[in-house]
């Protein structure tokens, strides 16, 4: 289980997260929801070690991730698909996937699995990443993270700005990762996506955890979530 306990983090001396605690379980999707500036991206960056913690801890299978240098966190099995994709734009699809794959050098089938999940990437294999459409870029960003065969996958607004067909493909891939037993932390603002995918919803407000709702609670009273999100 990915466990955050009283995590406080921020940028420089500006504290954004204040004592946030939640747990993401294998085979489940935990949606991190909240308004803009609530601290969703800061939370996933803190999990990845990209921001130093001001307090608290992040653990995964008895490994204290917050004690590791940032480059060791992916090697502990934590995959990250950042907001805005952050691909290597001048490298080809194949080269981008290679960089993701080499971290997990022993697994030779990871690339085949990714290309099976996203056949579009096979078609675009020798094309430069910055010439792909937004949806294809998102597939590549997810594929690159999945090449690692992560046990935990952090997705930061993966469907932002995509056309409906691409949104469906990305959601299907996210659900497949959950079905394979991966603990998925999904930063999401769309109510329909949250309702469709989330097993748990952790609601952030001004850097604090306001509520954790289960799938059943969201299903019984969708208006409650909408009210909490302020939409």
């Amino acid at each position, binding site marked *: 289980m990915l466990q955050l306990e009283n995590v406080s983090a921020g940028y420089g001396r500006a504290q954004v997260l204040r004592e946030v605690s939640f747990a993401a379980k294998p085979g489940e999707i935990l949606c991190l929801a909240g308004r803009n500036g609530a601290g969703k991206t800061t939370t996933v960056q803190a999990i*990845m070690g*990209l921001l130093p913690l001001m307090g608290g801890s992040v653990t995964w299978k008895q490994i204290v991730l917050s004690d590791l*240098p*940032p*480059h*060791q*966190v*992916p*090697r502990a099995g934590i995959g*990250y698909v*950042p907001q805005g994709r*952050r*691909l*290597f*734009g*001048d*490298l080809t699809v194949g*080269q981008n996937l*290679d*960089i*993701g794959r*080499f*971290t997990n*050098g022993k697994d030779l089938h990871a690339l085949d699995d990714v290309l099976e999940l996203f056949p579009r990437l096979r078609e675009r294999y*020798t094309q430069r990443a910055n010439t792909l459409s937004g949806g294809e870029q998102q597939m590549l960003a997810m594929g*690159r993270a999945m090449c*690692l065969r992560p046990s935990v996958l952090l997705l930061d607004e993966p469907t932002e700005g995509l056309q409906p067909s691409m949104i469906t493909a990305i959601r299907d891939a996210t659900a497949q990762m959950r079905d394979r037993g991966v603990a998925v932390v999904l930063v999401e603002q769309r109510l329909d996506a949250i309702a469709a995918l989330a097993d748990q919803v952790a609601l952030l407000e001004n850097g604090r955890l306001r509520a954790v709702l289960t799938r059943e609670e969201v299903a019984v009273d969708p208006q409650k979530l909408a009210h909490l999100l302020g939409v």
Partner: protein
Amino acid sequence: MTTDLKKSLLLHGAVLAVLFASQFVLPAYHHGNLARVMILASYAMGYNLLFGYTGLLSLGHALFFAAGLYGMGLAMSQFDVGAGPALVCGVIAGTLVGAVIGMLALRTEGVAFMIVTLMFAQAGYLTILYFGTYTRGDEGFVIAQPDRVLLGLDLSDPTVRFFAAFTVFCIALIMCLAVVKSRFGKVLIAIRENEDRTQMLGYDVTRYKFSAVVLSASLSALAGAAYGILFGYVGASFASVQYSIFPLLWVLLGGAGTVLGPLIGTLFMFYLIDLSSGITTAYMLIAGVVLVLLTVFAPQGILGELRRRVWKWLP
């Protein structure tokens, strides 16, 4: 083996074959020039590993070339070692200097990295001048012909020298190709593209950059040691800032981040200066104009442009 890899091996094999065969047809003057160009291109290949593939712009690479040159030269002049062991001493000296400079300079990045490497190279240059008792300062020293014998072969003989330069070039080329095609090389390219993203994917970026500096320094030192032993001269001018700028120009001209770019750039620049100096005393002006034109019309260098437009598989 993929088609791209086959094409790439075929091209590089063909270039090596042409270089080897050229010794039988070239007149003596160009024969000697080509031997020199191959050694300098090996130096540029070392530079390219750091600049073209890792994205670290060093302005102090002359220090590594000179470390190889003086490591070899001083081993021969001060300790009377043979040509073979002296060559090894040169490479070891360059590797050690690379490791020390790497540890210190990689604490900085960007412009600061350029300045720090430049300062270290200047310190190295001044050290050579300061210890003139051993290094003969600005004048340098000559390696006598009887000492330039390796495995019974007289390295001062033009044919042997050409073959030795060709061997060094082959080593550099194969090493660069192997690095670029390896997992290590692909991570270096990712670091060049974006350090933070590479780290985010689980790579210890500092360790990779350090390895690149050491590898680049070793190759530069090999070229330096080979230059000294093949052409019989060890001089402080090779440690000057000019010899840090040259490989940058050669690599930019030929195409940064291409394996053959340094050879093309070195050959082009060498003959540009050679030919234009035969026409006018203002030959640097001609060289400058040509460089500006190339920068404007082929900003990625000769092979870089060729890769962008035609040979996308070029490593």
